[in-house]
């Protein structure tokens, strides 16, 4: 048993941190925040592509580095720390994973090399309004190879080239690959709680769509894609939560109230200790998820659910209590606390809110205990 990253993986992580410190300081994140029309940081996206990160887990035969998911997890943690304003998750954790999981050889050949080269941005379009879509609520429809419907919201929908869309065909839910640059696709940018990440409303009218995986497998595949993405997102969450704890600790070591460092008050000490506890729980659950993901273990659904639940909880707590530790100044636009507060919710919603994951975890546990 070896429950840690290898030296090479740690080295990669260190490199990634240095790279992002140089290329993605929060001043760059704020450029996207402050410009309502700006969906992402194009320069950073190109620079990240130059590092080969998009292809870290894509096999060499499809143009990737073929490193594996542990390496991708290490990168994800650093991207989370940096609150990177780029469509990495949509492209790599969602689109690439979907294609690797369920794509035909031809689909893999068509899409994965472009992802690895940083040539395309991806998206996963499932939501159609309030609440997670279900077999009975799903409206988007494919008929005669053409997709019609509305997806709302779609993360990175404004900028994505290729999307995997959940839709029904002959009454059965399936996943479909759609070229978003073709005719019949209308995009509308949305205002969100986290303007450093893009979201859009996509309207499809008779847009060519090619099925990914089997007919009627839509929800089943979606769940498997979400499991994989949830592990990677849990690393982003851990990275963000760690950064919040560091900010709070630094501030507690410089701010005086009543003639003492605020870090000398137990109310603050206990708050930071609680952050640490939650962050470590999240990290360990994420590690277990990483192992399950990397080895394609049957434990993945349980491990991914646990990683997601712990990741959401840790990031939310760290983000809000970091503001609280800062007092009035934490509630300002100029101080970075809110970048993390916003991102904690964005990551907490993007593959579905924790509520559904708790349900999923329990149903998996029930099944395991019955077996």
């Amino acid at each position, binding site marked *: 048993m070896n429950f840690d990253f290898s030296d090479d993986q740690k080295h990669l992580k260190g490199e990634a941190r240095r790279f992002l410190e140089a290329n993605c300081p929060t001043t760059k994140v704020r450029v996207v925040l402050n410009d309502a029309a700006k969906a992402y940081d194009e320069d950073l996206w190109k620079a990240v592509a130059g590092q080969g990160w998009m292809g870290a887990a894509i096999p060499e035969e499809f143009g990737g580095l073929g490193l594996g998911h542990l390496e991708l997890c290490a990168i994800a943690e650093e991207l989370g720390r940096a609150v990177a304003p780029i469509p990495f998750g949509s492209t790599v954790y969602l689109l690439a994973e979907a294609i690797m999981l369920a794509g035909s050889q031809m689909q893999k050949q068509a899409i994965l090399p472009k992802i690895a080269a940083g040539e395309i941005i991806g998206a996963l379009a499932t*939501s159609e309004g309030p609440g997670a879509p279900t077999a009975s609520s799903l409206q988007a429809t494919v008929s005669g190879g053409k997709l019609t419907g509305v997806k709302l919201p779609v993360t990175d929908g404004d900028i994505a080239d290729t999307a995997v869309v959940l839709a029904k065909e002959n009454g059965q839910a399936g996943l479909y690959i759609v070229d978003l640059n073709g005719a019949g696709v209308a995009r509308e940018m949305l205002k969100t*709680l986290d303007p450093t990440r893009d979201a859009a409303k996509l309207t499809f009218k008779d847009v060519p769509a090619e099925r990914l995986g089997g007919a009627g497998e839509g929800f089943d595949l979606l769940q498997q894609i979400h499991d994989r993405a949830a592990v990677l997102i849990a690393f982003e969450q851990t990275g963000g939560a760690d950064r919040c704890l560091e900010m709070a600790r630094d501030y507690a070591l410089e701010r005086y109230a009543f003639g003492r460092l605020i870090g000398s008050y137990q*109310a603050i000490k206990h708050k930071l200790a609680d952050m640490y506890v939650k962050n470590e729980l999240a990290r360990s659950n994420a590690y277990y998820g990483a192992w399950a993901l990397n080895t394609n273990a049957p434990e993945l659904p349980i491990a991914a659910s646990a990683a997601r639940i712990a990741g959401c909880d840790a990031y*939310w707590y760290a983000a809000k209590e970091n503001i609280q530790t800062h007092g*009035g100044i934490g509630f300002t*636009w100029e101080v970075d606390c809110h970048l993390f507060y916003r991102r904690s919710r964005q990551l907490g919603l993007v593959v579905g*809110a924790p509520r559904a994951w708790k349900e999923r975890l329990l149903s998996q546990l029930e099944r395991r205990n019955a077996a």
Partner: protein
Amino acid sequence: MDFSDTSEEAEYRETARAWLEANAPKEGLKPDRTGGADLDHHRAYQAKKAAAGYAQISWPKEWGGPGGTQIQQVIFSQEEARYNINSAYFSIGLGMCLPTVIACADEATKKRFVGPGLRGDEIWCQLFSEPSGGSDVAAARTRAIRDGDGWVVNGQKIWTSGAHYSDFGILLVRTNTEVPKHKGMTMFWVDMKSPGIEVRPIHQMSGQKGFNEVFFTDVRIPDSQRLGAVDDGWKVSLVTLMNERLSIGAGTAADSGAFIQLAREATIDGESALRDATLREKIADWYVQTEGLKHTRMRTITALSKGQTPGPENSIAKIISAKQAQDVGAEAVDMLDQFGIIRDPDISPLGGLFQDQWMAGPGSRIAGGTDEILRNIIAERVLGLPGDIRVDKDVAFKDMPTGR
């Protein structure tokens, strides 16, 4: 104990209800905090209330108030709550600043300010917090130096809500640095248009501009604007802070009605979210908290209306209400799943009420006493537990350990 109206109370309620029906703006009033055109709507309604004796109902006649009872105030507020009216423009002045002025000023000053304050003609702000301390207000460094029959003030205040549209403020300054910090401060009222005052709005994380930095450069304040004795400003500030906690605790508890409405519309696994067992449990908990606070406040008001000093029970209010607002916002956003990330009044349910609440939540847990300070107050002043070791009590202000 009796939770129903007496016959006089019922009559008062009837009259208030009829008055509101005729006069309350049907579309509600929600301050945008810019102090621009929307302030005129708030002023118009406030002036009507004042003319009808419904502004600060329990303020005594000798202050220039309507001279009603605390219970009447409660009744009116309950009835007014149906109209979705938020009077935040006036609440700092009426809830904190003017009671402080009234407690300390001479007759002429009271006469001068009470009427315009009640009518909403003049707006007040509270100039206490500084970069050097918000929890520790007594760390204030803004300096007033005696000069003939007045004072010259230099320094900076921060987080001053509404300073950008305020006419007057109450200002806590340092007048003596040779004594321990609580013993060297003095309170004044100040005209915000005085030469040397510069107000710079601060961008809040929510995107709004509700609070400000206020800079004082050689601002002259006549000694006649002093509230309380020289170097006795700390005691005066306690009057304000007590009123602050009473008034802040009152308004902000979550409205489970709106949440239920949202839950009814949203779906979880194809069913109304209102049928979801975990959500039902949470709504029940929030409801009980909100009711508990409401009735706690009634206990306080009952004590006040009998001329008794209220017990410490009202100090629980903001600890509950601020965190609850944040929790409810988060839960409401999550309930919508991916759709919750959208923050657009035209798309988000209920005009984005809960997204806004989620963004404002962190501020409520800090403004008017942080969660941590309020707990310290309960532990030390209510329960009598020993205080933290203080290093700032007996040293001269100038020798106190500080950060930057």
